[in-house]
């Protein structure tokens, strides 16, 4: 199987122009396989969890307000703008390759610019706030993750540890898409020089062919990762068990029930006053993450 696409340039030299579209199909297949696998697991194998009763909720989080803020409006807006941009990018970038033709280039680069702007904004923001720790995957996260996987493997009786505000999977997903995003954004911005945009007229000769080839490969690989990741992401967003997360991203809050059910109040403490609780460094990080909202 060819992993890359190569052509003969006008001088008859073989040059790299990107990844093979086979990889795109592979990502789609992988994403679909994961989804099916998970769906089967969640539907048939995983023990059905029952939500905590009102009493349990009251007991576990006595101070919790009726609406526990999980995402501020800014976060939600930026998420949905990001989502729109990424979806646009994927649809405009991938669908034509799959054979459905429509004018995609302008939409693609506009969406790409939105993504790029978001990326820059987010990076600057995160760096300015110096709260990289909240998304750090520490030893504890790994341990927690391992435990959860173990629990999945032995689905009966083992208590699955709950996470703080940002689950390890969430963090891993974030980092993976961030890496892919940076790759597509950086290469994509350069690739805009190859077509006429409002900013510049096309000049593909600004870089040598070999460099372009590598940029196209990174762009392609980033896109392929995105394709798989976003498929899974959307699957979870729509999955009945995870739908509360989606709602939280729409409404901004979660119910105390979901809070108690899915989170470890120690790792993510909340109160009606929303006052941070001091404690371990991790708590501080979690608290600052909360503040960040």
């Amino acid at each position: 199987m060819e992993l890359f696409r190569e052509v003969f340039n006008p001088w008859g030299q073989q040059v790299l122009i990107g990844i093979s579209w086979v990889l795109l199909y592979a990502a789609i297949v992988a994403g679909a396989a994961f989804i099916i696998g998970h769906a089967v697991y969640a539907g048939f194998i995983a023990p059905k969890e029952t939500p905590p009763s009102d009493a349990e909720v009251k007991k576990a989080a006595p101070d919790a307000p009726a609406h526990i803020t999980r995402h501020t409006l800014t976060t939600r807006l930026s998420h949905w703008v990001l989502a729109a941009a990424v979806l646009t990018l994927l649809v405009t970038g991938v669908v034509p390759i799959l054979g459905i033709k429509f004018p995609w280039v302008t939409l693609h680069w506009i969406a790409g610019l939105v993504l790029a702007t978001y990326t820059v904004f987010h990076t600057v923001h995160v760096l300015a706030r110096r709260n990289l720790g909240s998304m750090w995957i520490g030893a504890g996260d790994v341990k927690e993750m391992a435990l959860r996987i173990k629990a999945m493997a032995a689905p009966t009786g083992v208590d699955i540890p709950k996470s703080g505000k940002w689950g390890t999977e969430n963090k891993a997903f974030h980092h993976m898409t961030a890496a892919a995003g940076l790759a597509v954004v950086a290469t994509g911005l350069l690739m805009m020089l190859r077509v006429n945009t409002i900013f510049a007229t096309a000049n593909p000769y600004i870089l040598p062919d070999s460099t372009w080839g590598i940029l196209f490969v990174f762009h392609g690989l980033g896109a392929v990762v995105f394709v798989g990741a976003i498929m899974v992401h959307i699957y979870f967003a729509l999955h009945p068990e995870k739908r509360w997360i989606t709602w939280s991203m729409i409404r901004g809050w979660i119910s105390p029930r979901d809070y108690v059910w899915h989170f470890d109040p120690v790792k993510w403490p909340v109160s009606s006053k929303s006052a941070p609780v001091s404690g371990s460094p991790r708590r501080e990080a979690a608290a600052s993450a909360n503040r960040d909202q």
Partner: protein
Amino acid sequence: MAESNLIGQDIVSRDLVAKITGRAKYAEDYRAEGMLFTKLLLSPLPHARVVSIDLSAALAHPGVIAILTADEVPQDEFPFEPCLTNEPRYEGEPILAVAAVDEMTAADAIELIRIEFEPLPFAIDPLDSLRPGGPNATLMGNAYLGREVGEVKWEQSVFDAAGPDGMPMGPTEDEWEFGEGGVEAGFAKADVIVEEVIYSHSATHHPLESRTAMSYWQNGKLYIHCSVQSVAQSRRAIADRLGMPFEDVVFVSEFCGGGFGSKIRGSVTEIIPSLLSKKAGGRPVMMRVTRNEETAFGRARPGMQGWVKMGFRRDGRMTAMDLYLVQDTGSYARQGDTSTAADCASLIYTPETMRFRTVTVLTNTPPRAAQRGPGGAQGVPMLEPVVDRAARQLGMDRLEIRRVNGPTAATRFGRGNTQLTSCYAPEALSRGAEMFNWSERSARSGQRNGSKVTGVGLAFSTYYGGTSGWDGLLVIRPDGKLYIHQGVGNLGTHAVMDTARAAADVLGSDWEDCEVVWGSSSLHLPHSSTSSGSQTTHAHTRANHAVGMAMYGLLQELASLELGGSPSSYAVGNGRVYRIGSPGSGLTFAQAAQRAITRGGKFSGAVLPDDINEMTRNSATALAGQGLIAAAKDTYPHTARTYSFVATFAEVEVDVETGMHRVVEVTTVADCGTVVHPRSLAAQANAGVIQGMGFARSHKWSIDPTWGVHLTKRLEAAKPPTILDGPTQYHFAAVDLPDPQNPVGAKGIGEPPVGAGSGALLCAIEDALGGLYGSHTPMSPDKVLSIYENEGRVASGRLAIHV
């Protein structure tokens, strides 16, 4: 001596029936049992070094017989151009050749060859190459310094001073100046000074028949059938390229499907089938050159980027011309086009002072060669519109300004203070003006009818009109016929037939009793000029006249020996040598041939004159004993330079909404001495004008500057003129006054009409555009529109090449 009755007559060429019935054999029309076919591997890069070649798969391909690489062909010092190379200097240069049982097998085998190139720096635009740090076309440098190649780079300030649309003018390699006080003094005397950036583009010759060749070896002799402009000279050139004596080359080129300067002494690639045939044990090998290949190695006209400044007195007299030209000479030999352009300019305007500066730059584009009117065909159309501009400023008639400056028989011109053998330029201008009705038509200049604007222009052109000193060879055989052997080529000028008339005329022979022998060295041809540079008509009317006179003398001498009396008491005519006063006493040609064979010695070709060329000697010796044989060298005086002159007048209608134009009327008058073949002369002149107009309008080439790869490999893209691009009628006349140094009086005509045609068209278009700008080719609709819409600005740039 008999009265001339053949010179000046319309006699249909002997070979015409073959041409119009499909029986004429051009190089590719030969077929032989077991013939192999060749395909070439051409360089995809404009400059590279072959790093490795793997032929194994190609050699294993069924039907592949032999592969010839650059290592097996003669290679010599630059600028010698090898037929195959491992350091290609332009895209399309042949790297290796495959001979196989058919073309498809050969082509498929090429695709099986693994070849690796190391790209080298390359230059496409001469001006880029002259910039500081600009690319060099060869590893030795970028420009000619005399015969050597060296590096010429100009300072950035030169380019900065020129600005975006100006001509950068750095130090040049060649420079001359004449006239008292030089151009400085000349300009000081001027009342009006005009200066202009001027440009003429490069373009492939594109003869309709490509440079196909077929070869085989038999009994140690090489048989080669190819398409060349000259037979005797090409035979010698091919032999030289192969490093073998010319006697061992049997050279056949009966018909040549056009050359226009690209096939003067054959082509470097012509020896490829010869060498392949040698590798294949002598089997016939055909190399059909395709249009793609013709575009690559079929030669092209050198382009020029330049600038001119002219000074005029109020009476229109040119006091100074300062001409600066950068020549794009392509990837190999140095061309002399810019120098010739300057020489022609110094003759058509006879400026009181003139300076000429030029630099010849190598680029990684196809090799250049003379193309019909080399130099003149670029110089005239670049300069004539500038002269028109001066005339407008002077308020002077444009015909008058040319009359004032044009040459006469008494003119001494140029840096050599050169004298002319004859000049009827004033007559040509007057006759043309009269035929064209210049005064009435030029009054219509600028008339507007809707979007169509009338433009009227004329251009005056010149070119060398002939050489001398070549040989003639005649045989009178026992069949009573006069056989006129001709070593020139048969490329459509009819010169091979028409110049033979000179010999027949001297001998008073009926044309029906003459046979022209041409097209194959096996028929024993004399040392003849190349069919190029408008020299053939002059050179070979002289040579055939000389050999006619020699034959006349031999016939007189033979008759006096056979019949008594002094040789001078005999005359020749109507196929007989007879005693003056008693025509009944004499010998028929048939009898003379018999007697000559019997007598031997100088009559039978056994003893030959000392001054004839070795090739003529060999041919005559081979023919010896077959009849009465005369061989002679043209030793008539030729004490000055021979030039022909052409004036072309054109009226056009330019549609300023589309940039297209329609040529309404074209009139051409030539001073080319005595007319030999009126109809053919008119055809040569008119067709030259049309070629020139086509060049000035659409015929072009384009090479991508980034990749150095040719984009106009198709005739559809190269756009030579079609039958619809001009009017349906062209008017032509010849002054028809003899050149005194040629006993026949004729001068050549091939070259000058081209510059006259393109010049007249550009002047007429410039006139229609209100004198905005015309010194630029190709003046395609986009440029006309651009000049009209932008008040003289060429949107693509005045010096931008390949547009």
